[in-house]
C-alpha cells in the first residue's frame, strides 16, 4: 500500500530503505539526491501523534510526514511557504518548482485516505480470485497424485520406495514432476500466508534425504542447462522440522541451478555436528554485491546481476527461504568467495544450521 501511495503522490517521496522517488507534479531536487548523510530518514522513523507533521531539514527543505493506519511516507525536498520560515532565500530562489501550498498537501492526504479502503477492497477481491484458482489447482493435483499412486501400487516391490525404484524412467520422471508440483504449491502458500510455514507439528526430518530428493528432482533440469548437481558430506541426524523444510530445499537448489554458469557444478553439502545439521548450497555464477547482500532475502528483491543472468524469477525464492528459516528459528547466511572482480562472478554459498533442540 505504501508503494501505491508513493507512486500516486504528486510530491517527491523517500521510503525507509532510502529510495527517492519523483512526484508526478514535483520532482526530487538534485540537492536531496546528493545530500549525505540523509537526515530526512530519521524524521520518517521519529515518533509522531499527528497524521501530518511538517519539519525542516538542515538544508532548509520542508519535510512532511503523512501517516495512515497502514504506515507513513515522507515527502521531502519541498518548500511549504506558509510553514517553512527558516528556508534560506538562496534555496527559495533556486528551487521555485519545489514550492507547495500546505492546503494542497492536506487535500491530497484526505483524498488518499479515501482511496486506501477502495484499494484494500480491490486487493481482497483479487486475492480471493487467486485463492479460488489455487484451490482448483490443488484439486487437480490431488487427482494426478492418486492416479500416480495407483500406478505405483501395481509395481513390483514390498515398499513404496522399492516400487518407485522399479518404475520405468518415464514414470519416475512423472513422479518427480508431481513432487515438484506439491512443493511449488507449498511455495505459493507461503507467499500468500507466511504463517503457513509453521503449520502442523514438527517431525524428525532426515535433512540429507530431503536435499538429496531435491537434487534428484533437479538433476534433469540442471543437465539441460549444462550444470551438474552433487551431494557431499553425510548426515544421520533428524532434527525436528516443519513440512516447509522441503520448500526451503527446493528454493536453494532451484536458485543454485538457475544462477549457475554452464559447465559448472552445484554442490549441496550436508553434515552433522554434535547438536545440529549443517547445510551449504554452493554454485558458481554472478555474485551478490556486498551492499545488496542484506536485501536479497526481502520480498521481490532481485539483484541487477540476477536479472541480467536470468529473466526468469520473481524475487520471491529467498524471501520464502527466509520465512521458512524464521519458522525454524535459524538464519540463512550468504557468502561469496573466489570472486573474479572483472566479471563479478564467483562461488555463491547459502548455508544454515538446524539445531537438534
Amino acid at each position, binding site marked *: 500500500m505504501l508503494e501505491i501511495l508513493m507512486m500516486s503522490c504528486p510530491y517527491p517521496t523517500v521510503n525507509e530503505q532510502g529510495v527517492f522517488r519523483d512526484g508526478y507534479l514535483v520532482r526530487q531536487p538534485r540537492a536531496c539526491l546528493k545530500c549525505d548523510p540523509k537526515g530526512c530518514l530519521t524524521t520518517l522513523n521519529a515518533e509522531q501523534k499527528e497524521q501530518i507533521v511538517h519539519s525542516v531539514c538542515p538544508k532548509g527543505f520542508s519535510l512532511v510526514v503523512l501517516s495512515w493506519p497502514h504506515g507513513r511516507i515522507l515527502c521531502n525536498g519541498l518548500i511549504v511557504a506558509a510553514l517553512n520560515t527558516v528556508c534560506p532565500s538562496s534555496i527559495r530562489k533556486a528551487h521555485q518548482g519545489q514550492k507547495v501550498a500546505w492546503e494542497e498537501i492536506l487535500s491530497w492526504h484526505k483524498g488518499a485516505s479515501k482511496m486506501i479502503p477502495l484499494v484494500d477492497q480491490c486487493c481482497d477481491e483479487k486475492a480471493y480470485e487467486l*485463492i479460488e484458482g*489455487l*484451490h482448483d489447482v*490443488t*484439486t487437480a*493435483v*490431488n*487427482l494426478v*497424485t*492418486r492416479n500416480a*499412486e*495407483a500406478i505405483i*501400487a501395481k509395481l513390483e516391490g514390498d515398499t*513404496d520406495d522399492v516400487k518407485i525404484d522399479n518404475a520405468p524412467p518415464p514414470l519416475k520422471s512423472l513422479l518427480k514432476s*508431481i*513432487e515438484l*508440483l*506439491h512443493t511449488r*504449491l*507449498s511455495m*505459493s*502458500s507461503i*507467499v*500468500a*500466508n507466511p*504463517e*503457513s510455514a509453521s*503449520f*502442523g*507439528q514438527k*517431525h524428525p526430518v532426515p535433512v540429507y534425504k530431503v536435499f538429496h530428493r531435491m537434487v534428484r528432482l533437479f538433476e534433469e533440469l540442471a543437465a539441460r542447462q549444462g550444470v551438474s548437481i552433487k551431494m557431499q558430506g553425510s548426515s544421520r541426524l533428524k532434527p525436528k522440522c516443519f*513440512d516447509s523444510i522441503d520448500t526451503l530445499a527446493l528454493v536453494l537448489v532451484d536458485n543454485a541451478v538457475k544462477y549457475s554458469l554452464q559447465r559448472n557444478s552445484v554442490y549441496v553439502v550436508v553434515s552433522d555436528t554434535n547438536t545440529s545439521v549443517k547445510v551449504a548450497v554452493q554454485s558458481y555464477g554472478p555474485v551478490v554485491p556486498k551492499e545488496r547482500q542484506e536485501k536479497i532475502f526481502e520480498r521481490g528483491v532481485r539483484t541487477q546481476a540476477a536479472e541480467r543472468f536470468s529473466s526468469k524469477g520473481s524475487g520471491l525464492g529467498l524471501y520464502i527461504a527466509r520465512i521458512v528459516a524464521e519458522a525454524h528459528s535459524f538464519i540463512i547466511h550468504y557468502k561469496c568467495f573466489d570472486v573474479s572482480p572483472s566479471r563479478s562472478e564467483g562461488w555463491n554459498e547459502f548455508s544454515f544450521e538446524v539445531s537438534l533442540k
Partner: protein
Amino acid sequence: MRLFKKKISRVPLPSVEVLRKRTRILVIDDDENSFPFEIMRNEGYAIDHWPKVQNLNKLEEGEYDIIVLDIGGVAKEYTHEDGLGILEHLKDVNPAQIVVAFSGQTFDLSKNRFWRLADDSLSKPVDATKCKRMLDSLIENKMTLSHYWGVVVEVLKREQVSDKNVAQIEDMLARAIENKDADKICDILKSACTKADLALRLASIGVKMAALLA
C-alpha cells in the same frame, strides 16, 4: 507428567504396529481424491470416509481415535464456520479428540486458526508417504496414557482443581491402570469433576485410556 509416566512404567502397552491396526481413523472430506484411502487401507490403517459430517454425536463421543478434517464443504449444516466450527466444537466437548487439519487452503490467512487449533496438519495435495508419517507420529505420540492424562490435567486445572487433588487423582488412576481396571479408570475420571458435562468428557477420556490397556 514424568511422575505419572514412572507410576505406570510397568504397565505393558501395545506396540505402534498393533495400535496402528486398532486405531480408528475418520477422514471427513468432500473430495474423495484428496486422501490416499486405498493405499492406506492396504497398509493396514482402519480408515472410514465421510464426505461431510454425518453424525456429530459419534464425533462428540469419541468413536474415532483420529479425525482428519477438511475445512470447507463438510459441515455447513451444523455451523457457518464449516470445518473450523466442528474443530472448535470437538476440542470443547471432547478435548482428548485427536484432530488433523486437512485442507488445501493454507494460503488463506482467514483460516489460520483452523491450522493452529488442530493436533497436526496435512496440507493438500498429500501423498501416501506423508499421510503415513503423520498418522504414525500421532499414534506414537498422542495415543498414549501420558498424553491422555495430560489432557485431563489441563481440563482439571482450567476448572481450578487444586494440585493436591490432581495428585490424588493421579495416584488412584495409576493404580487402576496397573490393575487394568477399565471401569475404575472411567469412574475415577468421571468423579474428578463435579460438573456433570465435564465429568462425562473426562469419562470419555477414561474410555480411550482403558482401550489402550485392552
